């Protein structure tokens, strides 16, 4: 249906080659703010990385830099296992759910979700099935013909999520995608993303403010410290349980939550934070 290009791994390459390597990246804006300072991060193919940190610490900036949006001030981004196109990005599909919905106001919901496919030359008729499936996933099938201004905040965000999922990406960058959603929709989408990750071997970098969410989803946690932004803690979350209702009730999950929480608290300089 969509002519997805595969994120080829060159023949003979070791399986262990990382997907993306961020090496000593600094980013300062012309306003003088140093958003990232000497940040290094290596993400392996197939990981589910959750990025946490205080508001304004540089999570979104880091994600954008990985996606090739905006130059680094110093430092480099490498894609050791991928063919690189002219823009320095791997050939293949990166999808990005921005922190803000970023919808085209002159397009309907359908048109907005169609965008990534349209840019690849997929015809509207061919794309329709995939689009409606993606809209169904986020519960907006009935709103395909609506314009963004006719949607609530959470609905806009869901359109943005549908747009990211419609291409069946190989690397999924999500910047607080579910923050504007109610808990139930949120959990459903959490499970949808997990399923996608498990089924397709996709790599996910997921920014969230929710300790619970990160503990539920990620198999690796990266906690950032603010001003300037840099990696403060970086640890795996292992569990023998499949992530799902069972895991949510488990001691593993509770331990993970506490661990993430502690790391975050530490990153914020030990301000008072009580977990319930």
């Amino acid at each position, binding site marked *: 249906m969509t002519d997805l290009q595969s994120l080829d791994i060159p023949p003979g390459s070791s399986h262990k080659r990382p997907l993306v390597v961020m090496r000593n990246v600094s980013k300062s804006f012309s306003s003088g703010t140093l958003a990232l300072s000497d940040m290094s991060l290596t993400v392996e193919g197939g990981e589910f990385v959750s990025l946490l940190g205080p508001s304004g610490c540089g999570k979104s900036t880091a994600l954008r830099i990985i996606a090739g949006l905006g130059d680094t001030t110093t430092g480099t981004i490498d894609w050791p296992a991928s063919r690189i196109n002219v823009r320095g990005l791997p050939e293949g599909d990166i999808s*990005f759910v921005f922190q803000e919905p970023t919808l085209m106001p002159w397009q309907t919901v359908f048109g907005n979700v169609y965008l990534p496919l349209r840019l690849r030359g997929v015809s509207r008729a061919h794309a329709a099935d995939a689009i409606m499936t993606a809209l169904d996933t986020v519960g907006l099938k009935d709103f395909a013909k609506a314009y963004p201004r006719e949607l609530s905040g959470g609905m806009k965000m869901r359109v943005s999520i549908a747009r990211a999922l419609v291409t069946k990406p190989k690397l999924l960058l999500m910047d607080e995608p579910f923050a504007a959603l109610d808990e139930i929709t949120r959990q459903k989408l959490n499970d949808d993303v997990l399923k996608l990750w498990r089924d397709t071997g996709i790599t996910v970098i997921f920014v969230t403010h929710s300790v619970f969410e990160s503990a539920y989803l990620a198999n690796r946690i990266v906690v950032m410290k603010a001003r300037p932004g840099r990696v403060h803690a970086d640890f795996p979350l292992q569990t023998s349980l499949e992530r799902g209702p069972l895991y949510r009730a488990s001691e593993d999950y509770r331990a993970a939550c506490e661990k993430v929480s502690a790391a975050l608290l530490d990153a914020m300089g030990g301000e008072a934070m009580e977990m319930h």
Partner: protein
Amino acid sequence: MSTASPVPTAASAAKNRETLLRILIPILVVVALVVLWQVLVTATGVPQYILPGPGAVAQSLVKDWGTLAPALWVTTQITMAALGLALIGGVGIAIFLIQSKWIETAFYPIAVILQVTPIVAIAPLILIYAPTTQVALLICAFLVAFFPILSNMVQGLKSVDHNLLNLFDLYGASRWQTLIYLKLPASLPYFMTGLRIGGGLSLIAAVVAEFAAGSAGAGSGLAFRLLEAQYRLNIPRLFAALVLLSALGVVIFGITSFIAWLGLHRWHESSVRREN
């Protein structure tokens, strides 16, 4: 999405009334103006050869319809051709200018020079080198009308939301795709303003071009009739020609406004009703 049945009926009635008023009000205003004009003429006793009353003008309009109608038609044609050229030229040059900051710096001033050069001064040159008077006329008209469209388009094309630009970059959109799917639709509100100005200016351009490039006799437009009436001191006819010009201008304005409404009413603040 359920619909309460009594609501649309009330809404559609309100809509009908609104449409009616939208047509009625301008007519009322025009009638009021005409009455004011008549009163003024009567009260001050200004002679007809300085300012004829609406009656004399209407009479002349009827009597001279035989000469005025073909002239109106010629002017309409030139105006449309000028507007078409100005749209193509203005939008085309605007797209060229925004390709890079350097192109803009280098070539925008040339567009300014073209704009500020008085047509009367270069009309002879154009007449000499243009293959036919018709072409000369169109060149003159284009020179008068293109700049507002160009300026508005440049501003519009540059005012695209940076987040959406990021989105397009991310999906590897080509320059062309970014232009078609993002920059052009996003600049629609500016384009529509340009169109609205350009519509009126094209009419002026048609008149000025006819003055400058001079067509005479059978194939001449309202400009010529106007000058001639002036020369002949046939002031009622002069005003009849003015009335026709004004009417043509208002019709063009109405059409361009309608086009603007069509393009924007679904999504843009300027045309969308504010609903909370």
